[in-house]
Structures are given as structure tokens and as C-alpha cells.
């Protein structure tokens, strides 16, 4: 059984705003019965440009119903500009969080919102952009890219939890992995300005202290930064690490991976003899 928050359960058992607004200003239908969840969203906008009423109909599990109920509550009283900014994470947060396997329910809510606003603005409902990657659930590369970017997703499993992509035949897992790698490398690139040698040493020391030493020390080991020359990070193993046969692997698989992720990606960790 899923661990739902009390708020999720409450919105599931007593959903707000169930139904359909006649002659709505905003209208959307997303998902399908084959997929296992579907959502119809309608809203009405008053003269001041604020959403005065929003209603939903849902076919889906408890978290799909709760997410739709939450979304309609969040919409009321908002201007279209404010409503446009609602993210799937905010829908989940409104409910006090959703189990990660159920995040796709909140994504469905955001998709419905987007479509309903497009309907309101009179803009054509865009046919799905991009190329379908997951044939089983009809998810495109654009949708996957967006989910990865907005929710900082790292694995195929994450992507499946948020978008359903990859949850069927699993034939698209390689493509999803590729998309994650591309998006993540784009995300990282601009935030890493060139570092001076002193900055590098400072940053490395910080990461060693915060991320690396605690786990080495729990095994009786330690590590010391000896020098930085260009991309070469020279370190010395101390304590149990100095005599441990696996220390070379620890350096490459753990220390180097962490430093590359958090300091700069081209660095190479080298062990210097004591």
C-alpha cells in the first residue's frame, strides 16, 4: 500500500470541485483510459481576469484524484498569468508530497492546466511537440526533457515516475538515458565558470570535507589534497586507505566522480606516493 499524506487521502476521499463547468473559458482533456489516468479540467474566468471557478473529472488512482482536486483549489482566485506558473512540484507540495512513483499524477495536472490555458487564450492546442520516445505511453522527447529539467531527474526510473515514459515495454530506456545525459550536461554547463587554481583548491577542500571524508573516516581512512596542477588533482591516501587494496577504486569511483560532479568535470584524480 502506498504511503499517502493525510492531505492526499483527504483530497481523495473528499475531492473538491468535481464536475464540469458548462461553457467554460478554459478546457482540457489529457491522458487516456488505456494509460490508466485521464483528467478533464474546466475553468471560468471573471471580469477582473481571475479564475473564479475550476472543476475536474478524473479517471485514476487516489493520487490522480487528489492531484486534480488540489489543482482546482490552487487555481481559484489566480490570474491566468499566476496560474501559468504553477508547476507539477507545487501541486505535489500542496498535498504535502506524493510518493515518487506517483509524481506522474501531478505532471498530468500541469499538462491539463497548460492545455486549458491555451484553450482560454484561443491559441491552437499544439499537437504534441517533438518525437514520441515511449510508444507505450505516447511520451515525447520534449516532455521528457522538460520533466528532467524541472525536477532535476537523474535516472530512467525517475523519468518513468514523473512521465510514465519507459514504464511499459522498456524498449526506450536507452533513448531516455541519452536524453537525461544531454539535458543534464546542458544544465551544468553554464553554472561552472572557469576556476583559478586557488579557487579549485578551496572548492576541492570543501567537497572533501563535506562529501568525502565522512564516509572514508567511517572506515578508518582519510584523504589529503597534495596539489592541483591544471586538471590533475593530486591526493594522498591516509589511514586505512593507505593500506587498502580497494583504495584505487575508491579514488576513481567515488572521490573522482564526486569531485567531477561538484567542482569541475574534466579533473583527474591521481594518487601520489607518500
Amino acid at each position, binding site marked *: 500500500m502506498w504511503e499517502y499524506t493525510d492531505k492526499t487521502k483527504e483530497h481523495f476521499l473528499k475531492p473538491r470541485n*468535481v464536475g464540469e463547468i458548462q461553457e467554460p473559458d478554459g478546457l482540457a482533456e489529457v491522458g487516456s*483510459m488505456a494509460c*490508466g489516468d485521464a483528467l478533464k479540467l474546466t475553468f471560468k474566468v471573471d471580469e477582473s481576469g481571475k479564475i473564479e471557478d475550476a472543476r475536474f*473529472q478524473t*479517471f*485514476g488512482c487516489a*493520487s490522480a484524484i487528489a492531484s486534480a482536486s488540489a489543482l482546482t483549489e490552487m487555481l481559484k482566485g489566480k490570474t491566468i498569468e499566476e496560474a501559468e506558473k504553477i508547476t507539477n512540484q507545487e501541486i505535489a507540495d500542496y498535498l504535502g508530497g506524493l510518493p515518487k512513483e506517483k509524481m506522474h499524477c501531478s505532471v498530468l495536472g500541469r499538462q491539463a492546466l497548460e492545455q486549458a490555458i491555451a484553450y482560454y487564450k484561443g491559441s491552437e492546442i499544439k499537437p504534441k511537440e517533438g518525437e514520441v520516445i515511449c510508444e507505450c505511453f505516447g511520451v515525447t522527447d520534449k516532455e521528457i526533457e522538460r520533466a528532467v529539467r524541472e525536477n532535476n531527474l537523474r535516472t530512467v526510473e525517475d523519468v518513468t515516475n514523473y512521465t510514465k515514459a519507459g514504464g*511499459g515495454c522498456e524498449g526506450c530506456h536507452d533513448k531516455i538515458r541519452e536524453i537525461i545525459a544531454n539535458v543534464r550536461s546542458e544544465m551544468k554547463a553554464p553554472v561552472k565558470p572557469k576556476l583559478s587554481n586557488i579557487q579549485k583548491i578551496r572548492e576541492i577542500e570543501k567537497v572533501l570535507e563535506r562529501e568525502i571524508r565522512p564516509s572514508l573516516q567511517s572506515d578508518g581512512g582519510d584523504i589529503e589534497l597534495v596539489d592541483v596542477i591544471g586538471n590533475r588533482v593530486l591526493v594522498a591516501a591516509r589511514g586505512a586507505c593507505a593500506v587498502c587494496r580497494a583504495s584505487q577504486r575508491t579514488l576513481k569511483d567515488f572521490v573522482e566522480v564526486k569531485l567531477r560532479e561538484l567542482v569541475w568535470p574534466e579533473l583527474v584524480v591521481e594518487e601520489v606516493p607518500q
Partner: protein
Amino acid sequence: MRTIYLDNNATTRVAPEVLEAMIPYFGDLYGNPSSAHSFGGQVGRKIGEAREKVAALIGADPGEILFTSCGTESDNAAVLSALSTQEGKRHVVTSRVEHPAIKGLGLHLSQKGYRVTEVPVNRDGILDMDFYEKSLTPDTAVVSLMWANNETGVLFPVEEAAEMAKQRGILFHTDAVQAGGKIPIDMKKKSAISMLSLSGHKLHAPKGIGVLYVRKGTRFSPLIIGGHQEKGRRGGTENSASIIGLGVACELALRRMEEENTRVKSMRDRLEAELLARIPKSKINGAPSNRLPNTTNISFESVEGEAILLMMDELGICASSGSACTSGSLQPSHVLRAMGVPFTMAHGSIRFSLSVYNTDEDVDFIVRELPPIIEKLRSMSPFWTPEVGVCATAAG
């Protein structure tokens, strides 16, 4: 809140008689059944009696009963033994609707280079016997087919299938975890079944005890190595209390077999008939006339199973669903998909499984409480058009 438990294919209540029989072996009678002293030996004797009772339930010889830790272990031990005693053969035949214990093992074996054939079923969950017969080859080491399906209760003609395997010199294993104690099983001399799995907690014994029946004369290679227990066929100090409890449970099951097939069956039939009559667009999954007496699997169109389960949970009703959302996967149950149940129906499937501990009041309660739940969820569903009472996408 009263618990209305209709999830007996998931697990069952430990019968009070079983619990009572077990308690001394957690207390004063803690001896090791293998010890030379009589303090341990008395436990060994009790295990011997339990072995006789288990054997009696399935018409076997006590020497053909191995105690294991669960049904999954029994399934694994059977198939892996068949493969390791016939090293030249690299093919396994099973079905598309097996329990994960066999399905997962099949996947594992296919990754290890074995060829695994999954025999399909038809819309009613009935095994395709022509396909089955054609899939038996000289390279086939073992067939593993479930006796009764855990989700739908549909029975496979395992005796007939075993006979076909035997004629070709192929070992036949059946996962009888759901069938054991619910329908008569007789491993008499002329049966062609070589191995059979049972699980204690499906028949009112505790969790953590299983049985593998291995027909006399069947070559066997143990899964758990390193102990003399079970004549070297399953190492590890015996789970004395649970084995003794299982003996009592099997004795009770044999005695209650008729009740299972009359009173329990009639409660199941009434539950099913009343729900179908009160809830439009509902349908039974699985051949109605060829099922376990205690199981019904019903689909309610336009609603989602997890939502039904959670609303029933609020009322203390325990059941299961084949919907995707319940399991955490995104696709509905592999059993319903193999049967070609449309996704629109598979997502809204609920399994009720009864036991001798259920009462007419339980059935009355569900018959009263479930229709409004379905109605409430349908009123929220964009696919449901109340005026005509049909699903808007039913045609599509």
C-alpha cells in the same frame, strides 16, 4: 472498525488450532529435531507426524514431502533441480500467467541462456493446449504450470498437461500454492506430476513455511546445500513450530475441503452475482465454471482499482486489484493482459478471495457498500456518462 478480510489469496489468518499447536515449540520444546537426545527427538517425531499430515492432504507418501521456507523457494528448487539434473537440456516451458515466483525465475533463466516458452491463455484464462503440446521438444527439461491462478482462480488441466510431458520424458512441476487445501489434490501413483509446490500461509498456517513434493524416483538436486536435513535435499535446521503448525493446517484443510467447496463457494457465488446485478458495466475475469471455489475477479468499467481499494479500506474491507497503480508498475496485471482484458477493464479489476472464516454478513456488507463506491468514482470519471450508463470510450 471491523476487518472484512476477503484477500485470502494474498495470505490467510493462522487458524487458532494451528497457533495453539505451535506455541510449545517456541517455549519449552525448543530442542533441535536432529539431536541425539530425547529432548530434541520428541520434536523430530512431531515433525514426522506433520509430514504425514501434509502428505495426506495431497495423497502423497511422507517421504516425498520436503519442507522449505516458502512457495517461491519450492518453485525455484523444483525448476532449478530439473535443470541441474539434466544438464544437456536447455528449454523450460511455463505459461504467461504464472506467479512472479516462476515468471521471474523464467526471466532469470532466459538471461542465463536458457530458452523459456510461455504458453498463452485465451480470454477466459484457459491454457492453449495445442500451443502447449507443440512447445514440448526433446530439449525441454521441465514444464512448470500453476494449478490455480492466484488472480482469477482459473484452473489449469495440470494432470492432462503432466501426462503429455511424461510421455515425452519431460519433468512436470506445478505451483499448487493457490490450489492446495481448496480443491482435492491426489498425487497417487498414476499421476504424471513430478513436483508440486505448496505454501503454508495460503492455507491458514503461518508465513515462512513451504512444501515441495518430489515424486519418488525423481532425480533431485538441492537448492540449499550444507545440511543433512530433509535427507540432504534441503539443508537448514527445521522450522519446527511452523512445520508442526502446517501439519495441523493441512489436517484442517482436508477436513474442511467440503465446506470450502460448498459454503465458501456459495458465498463467493452470491457476492459475485449480487455485485454484477447491482453494478452496471461489471464483468467477471476468468472462466466462471473452471475456478477455485473461493476466488472472484471482477472488473468495473471506467474506474481505477486503487481508488476502489482505498475507499473500501476506509470501511475495513480488504481485497486486491490488478490495476497498474496498485502495484507501482504502470501496466495492469500481466495475468489480465495475457487474457486480453482491455486496459479499460483491467485498470478497474478487483479480486475478492474468501476463506472458511468469512460469513454471510461479510458478503452482505460488501454487497451494500461497494456499489456506492463505484458510483462515486464513476461520477468523477470523465469516461462515464450517467444518462445512458455506458462508458463513453467503450466503443473505442
